[in-house]
């Protein structure tokens, strides 16, 4: 090992700050140099803006019906037209950003917290604890995710909250695995040994040395999970296991339009197209961000 490399390893011990500042600059350069990631961030920011200020932006009440304007096509008053009950689609989409994005985020937050606890425990403690936890994760992974989510929601009762919980649960194993393998590579590093030598307890080691250094793969995986979580929650809504009418959730909007009969395919095409575009755009931008984060945080993948 050269002098320099040793010095580098030491900055790790003294404080993550010295090293992380360089890393942050590096991260910004790669992430914001990636046009797709930038676009994704911009689109996501727009959606979040809509979600936050829905009551101000939305031109109409998302629940206000007008049965005389069933599937009325887009006009200058109703930019995206009206749905099967004559409700303004644009307003419903803007309010829907709240429901759909929050639901996705909540599911991922649940999966991330539980997955991290399981992953750290398995990776740090090792031995039989590791085996038991990982076998349990394998069993969950053996189920096709949507099927498992369906069963969980059936047990808990259909509601948007339970759909979020179900999607959260089925995504725990993936995150736990990522965290575990990151922890295992970090565990044997010199700086962890140094912390221990300085008399740090297990919890403190996990908090100051293990977690910060396992963060990069976790962030990437959590972002990519958010993309599938939004899709899965929409799918559960479609099956009648998520958001219930008249909630303006994007997946539920498509479902309600579909259930109104075959006429929707002929006269209500706009009621199908726009909610789907909203879902696809948000998921696509999350995927762009996730790919960008992976390139920026994982130097091995960088080209």
């Amino acid at each position, binding site marked *: 090992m050269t002098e320099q490399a040793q010095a580098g390893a030491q900055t790790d011990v003294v404080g993550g700050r010295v090293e992380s500042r360089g890393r942050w600059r590096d991260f910004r350069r790669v992430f914001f140099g990636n046009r*797709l990631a930038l676009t994704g961030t911009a689109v996501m920011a727009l959606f979040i803006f809509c979600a936050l200020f829905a009551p101000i932006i939305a031109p109409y009440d998302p629940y206000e019906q007008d049965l005389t304007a069933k599937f009325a096509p887009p006009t200058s008053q109703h930019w995206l037209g009206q749905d099967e009950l004559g409700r303004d689609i644009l307003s419903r989409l803007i309010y829907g950003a709240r429901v759909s994005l929050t639901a996705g985020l909540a599911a991922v937050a649940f999966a991330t917290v539980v997955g991290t606890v399981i992953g750290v425990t398995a990776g740090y403690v090792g031995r039989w604890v590791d085996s038991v936890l990982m*076998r*349990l994760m*394998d*069993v*969950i992974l*053996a*189920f*096709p*995710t*949507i*099927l*498992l989510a*369906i*069963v*969980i929601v*059936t*047990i808990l*009762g259909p509601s948007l909250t339970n759909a979020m919980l179900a999607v959260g649960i089925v995504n725990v194993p993936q995150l736990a695995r990522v965290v575990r393998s990151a922890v295992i590579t970090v565990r044997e590093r010199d700086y962890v040994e140094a912390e221990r030598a300085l008399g740090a307890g297990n919890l403190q080691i996990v908090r100051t040395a293990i977690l910060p250094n396992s963060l990069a793969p976790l962030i990437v995986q959590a972002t990519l999970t958010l*993309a599938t979580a939004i*899709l899965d929650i*929409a*799918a559960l809504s*479609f*099956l*009648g*296991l998520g958001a219930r009418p008249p909630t303006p959730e994007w*997946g539920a909007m*498509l*479902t309600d339009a*579909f259930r109104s009969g075959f006429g929707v*395919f*002929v006269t209500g*095409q706009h009621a*199908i*197209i726009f*909610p*789907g575009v909203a*879902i*696809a755009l948000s*998921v*696509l931008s999350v*995927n*762009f961000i996730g*790919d960008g984060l992976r390139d920026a945080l994982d130097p091995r993948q960088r080209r």
Partner: protein
Amino acid sequence: MLIGVSVLVFFMVRLIPGDPAQILLGQTASQERVQELRAQMGLDRPLPVQYLLFVRGAVTGDLGDSIVTGRPVTEELLARFPATLELTLAAMLLAVAVGIPVGVIAAVRQYSVLDKVTSVLALTGISMPIFWLAMILIVIFTVQLQLLPFPGRTSVPISSITGLALVDSLLTLNFEGFRSALLHLIMPAVALGTIPMAIITRMTRSSMLEVMNEDYIRTAHAKGLMPRRVIFKHALRNAMLPTVTVIGLQFGLLMGGAVITETIFAWSGIGQIAYESINRRDYAMIQAVVLYGATFFVLINLLVDVLYAILDPRVRY
């Protein structure tokens, strides 16, 4: 693994609120009658015994009767299986037939316009809700262009032999039926196959790129082999390993996707029955679908491991 799966399914179904005997008999049934049925169903025995009975039932194909139709659930599922098999095989075939070549071309021409376009397209494919894609297909091909029929599996009667509409119509030389069945199959297969197609494309591309940087590829080029030969014989075979794993994992996605696709296209397969039994709270049916679905998924991935050994002689079991 299968033991773990069966234990989990068993306990999850026991967690579903409500006493099955009470549900079967209705709220007005007398307490004695409910107890009697509980005994008859084996619900009064200790849990481990119940579990063993459940496993025996699963293996012998006796998982109880559907609360809705009164027929044994396995019988119902078997009758519906060919329709789902036909749909998922068509979707998978489409995904593999398009995904692998496109992934290879994108990798060989890395950074070309083609590569960038396919990357974005593949990412878009992963980002679309499957039920939205299905509805858009119907709008375009059934309503606007009036090219493809909707809904159902065929508009011409086909006598059932294997239950696979395409095979049956050919066997009975019913070409009109074959044409109809094929046209009906296109939209559901595209809707169901798009996500796996996108994932396979991405996986093939990235594993091809990885393999192309290996020393043995440079050696093969240096030997003066035709680039085509290097790509297909030396690179693709090694790049196939991760791709095969991903293909196996796609079957899990396909099963979830089949529930949605079959519901939209009124495709009378297992997915449709799953959807119906969810809405009718037909627990015996849900239990059977999930258990057999997971078992099927585990077996597929076992098959993938075997394929691995064939593709990669270094792996031996």
